């Protein structure tokens, strides 16, 4: 078991190195450079000076090695678009905001989504199923910016109940959290429904019924437990996702989260921010996959026996 985990951690380090390398070269392959992306009205000599000051006049291969060396000393570098801000500080200060809003949204979304999914599966092809499926379809297809803009207009202009933008207390989180829970709600409802339906026809449910167990007991103990297993994999990935935030929701509600940094850094050619955030988020992501695998191993004996301990 320990050996298995160690091996997995080794692979994770490799994945992160590969992802960083690919990102580095893709980023440098995009035409343009940070200074041109940020300031258009610039004489050539000022531009050259800028590129030289940050080492961007060096060959890409050399820049890559320098970046890796810097990375191994634990330094994620500094923003180019925002001089004086360290990438590590950006992560430390703004991913909690994203995680808070995303976490609340995920919690509500997953709880409601699972409940809706179970409800739909147990009432297959009857009206609760149809209602849930139509809602889930709408939830996955309507773009977030439409939901966010409509909700913002309705609840801050037409009925001014909530503040329009900003981050100054719990009231500011309500609308963003609602917008962001729509996605997980719809996804988990659909996922849980199909997962439940898979289980309903399984042999062990037939056995349980034959043993004469009550329906409640069958649903709670046999169906749910097995149907939830696939959801755990997805949940770990969703949790990893909340740290990266949502560009759209954060832009519309002016939340100081990580999502905006990440996306705008790409168009700003803010190399170190893109790379640094990518390293951190890849790290969180591969960790979450490891955790989900360990959890599954603990919960599902069939997987456990497959791994030599």
């Amino acid at each position, binding site marked *: 078991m320990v050996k298995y985990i160690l091996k997995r951690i080794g692979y994770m380090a490799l994945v992160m190195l590969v992802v960083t390398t690919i990102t580095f070269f893709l980023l440098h392959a995009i035409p343009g450079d940070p200074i041109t992306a940020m300031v258009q009205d610039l004489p050539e*000599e000022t531009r050259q000076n800028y590129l030289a000051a940050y080492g961007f006049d060096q060959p890409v291969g050399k820049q890559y090695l320098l970046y890796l060396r810097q990375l191994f000393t634990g330094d994620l570098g500094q923003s180019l678009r925002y001089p004086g801000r360290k990438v590590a500080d950006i992560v430390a200060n703004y991913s909690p905001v994203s995680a808070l809003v995303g976490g609340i949204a995920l919690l509500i979304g997953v709880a409601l989504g699972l409940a809706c999914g179970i409800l739909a599966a147990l009432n297959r092809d009857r009206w609760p199923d149809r209602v849930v499926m139509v809602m889930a379809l709408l939830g996955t297809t309507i773009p977030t*910016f439409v939901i966010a803009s409509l909700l913002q207009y309705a609840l801050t202009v037409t009925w001014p109940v909530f503040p329009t933008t900003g981050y100054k207390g719990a009231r500011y989180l309500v609308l963003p959290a609602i917008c962001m829970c729509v996605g997980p709600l719809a996804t988990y409802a659909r996922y849980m429904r199909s997962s439940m339906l898979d289980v309903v026809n399984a042999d062990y449910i037939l056995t349980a019924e034959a043993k004469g167990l009550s329906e409640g007991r069958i649903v709670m103990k046999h169906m749910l437990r097995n149907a939830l297993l696939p959801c755990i994999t997805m949940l770990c990935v969703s949790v990893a996702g909340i740290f990266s935030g949502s560009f759209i929701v954060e832009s519309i509600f*002016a939340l100081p989260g990580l999502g905006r940094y990440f996306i705008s850094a790409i168009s700003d050619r803010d190399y170190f921010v893109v790379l640094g955030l990518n390293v951190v988020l890849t790290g969180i992501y591969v960790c979450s996959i490891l955790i989900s695998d360990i959890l599954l191993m603990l919960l599902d004996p069939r997987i456990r026996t497959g791994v030599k301990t």
Partner: protein
Amino acid sequence: MKKTIRLVLTLTVVLSLFAAIPVGAGAEGQTINALITSDPSTLDCARFLGIIDRNILHSITEPLTRIENGIVTPAGAESWTVSDDGLTYTFTLRENQWDDGERVTARDYVYALRREADPKNAWSFASDFFSIVNFEAAFNGAAAPSEIGALAEDDRTLVITLNAPNPAFLSTVDIFPCRESDVEAFGDSYGSEAGTVSSCGPFKMDTWVHNSELSFSRNAQYWDAEHVLLDGFTDQIIPDESAQMASLENGSLDYATVSTPEYAAKFDAHVDLYVLNITTDRTAMIVFNCEDPVLSNAKIRQAFSLALDRELIIEITNGGLGTPAYGLVPTVCYVGDVNFREATKEPLLALLDTDPAALLLEGMEEAGLGADPSKLTLQFTWRDTSATGRTYAELYQQMWEDALGVKIEIDFNESALASIREGNYQIGSVGWGSTYEPLFQLSRWSTGGQSRWVNADYAALVSEGSASMDDAVRLAKYQQAEAMLVTEAAIAPTYYNATQTYAYTHVDGIPTNPFDTTGMKTFFINK
């Protein structure tokens, strides 16, 4: 039933908790909520990157001089003299304090200039200061920053020397002060957070929540504090247009620039709002790559310039805001006291009767390209890849194809500006801002600029003009230069941009001159 009632009651209580504080309750006291569209890069005066940052610096620090209603006025300096040769500026500073009570001295201004010249800081706007002795050399590493022509003779006397007379000097540069002790205390993070910048201007910064909001309050130590009427203001950072407009509509913002005609129409009908039409300092234009075998011919370029229906471009691509441009220099520019545009007929107006199609044929013959325009295919590089952006590019395409019979391919390219800068394009679309004097707009084409148009006569006119302290000579040279640039069609100006600002009737003192550098100092609430 009981359960339902309980649920409804609980929901009501929860919702009313959220609703307890009404939003958009209007301005309480002298505070204003303003809009900025992106997070400031930094408030370090030697490293900032954009206009938003610069505007905030105007509110929190005191430059030597400010431009107010288009006129250079004393600010950090109470007076100054210029030597007869136009090279030496001697400033007498005012009694002004930093927000902790320490005097602002001439050394603070000198220190700031030296930091700006330091190549380590790679400051984007350094070239504005190249007329100061040794500034350019220092910036390129050929001299030490301490060798630049800025000297503190004593606490209150600052001497700046220039390489050559530059009548536009004070209307082009912001000379901000910066305390050495602050930079030493905060190091690399100087200017990146609220606590790391000292203030000596009308306001001081209280909070800065990145990508969300900045808040400012009146600086009691400021020399002119009695004329600062606002108690404070916030800058709300909202990049999304629908969120901006919602904030303006419900009063979360006190004023905002509105660029979409549909929103403008809606706010026109709003009784509490008034509109300010502001002519900006920007000229939108088409650039031609003059190193291209086809576009190196002046007549072909002229044909492309004259084929444009500028009124239609404004109507469709800019929501009807702006004025058609038949010259380069926008209406807000002055030479000395003379408005350039009022004194100068736009050069292209004289050519409007020329038939562009015939001109194209002449040009093609000269260039040995045959007599069939339909065999001519040119590429139009366009930056905006959004759906509306694409239709705008197609408008240009259609105008050229209809009027000239040529074929235009549009190259949608988010890195269009880089391609244009590298000369890797045929026809492109750009916009250039200007400064108070037309020199900034004119000088960039002296070495070819984005058009790679080489013309020694033009370069001579611009440099002769800029060196003359005689307003009349300068004006004449600039007029000739503009006419040459535009009639030879190194560029095809399309329109002088304008914007609309909608403000609640209680907001007063919004500057309408695009060159003003008064920050939020002039704003007040008018009850």
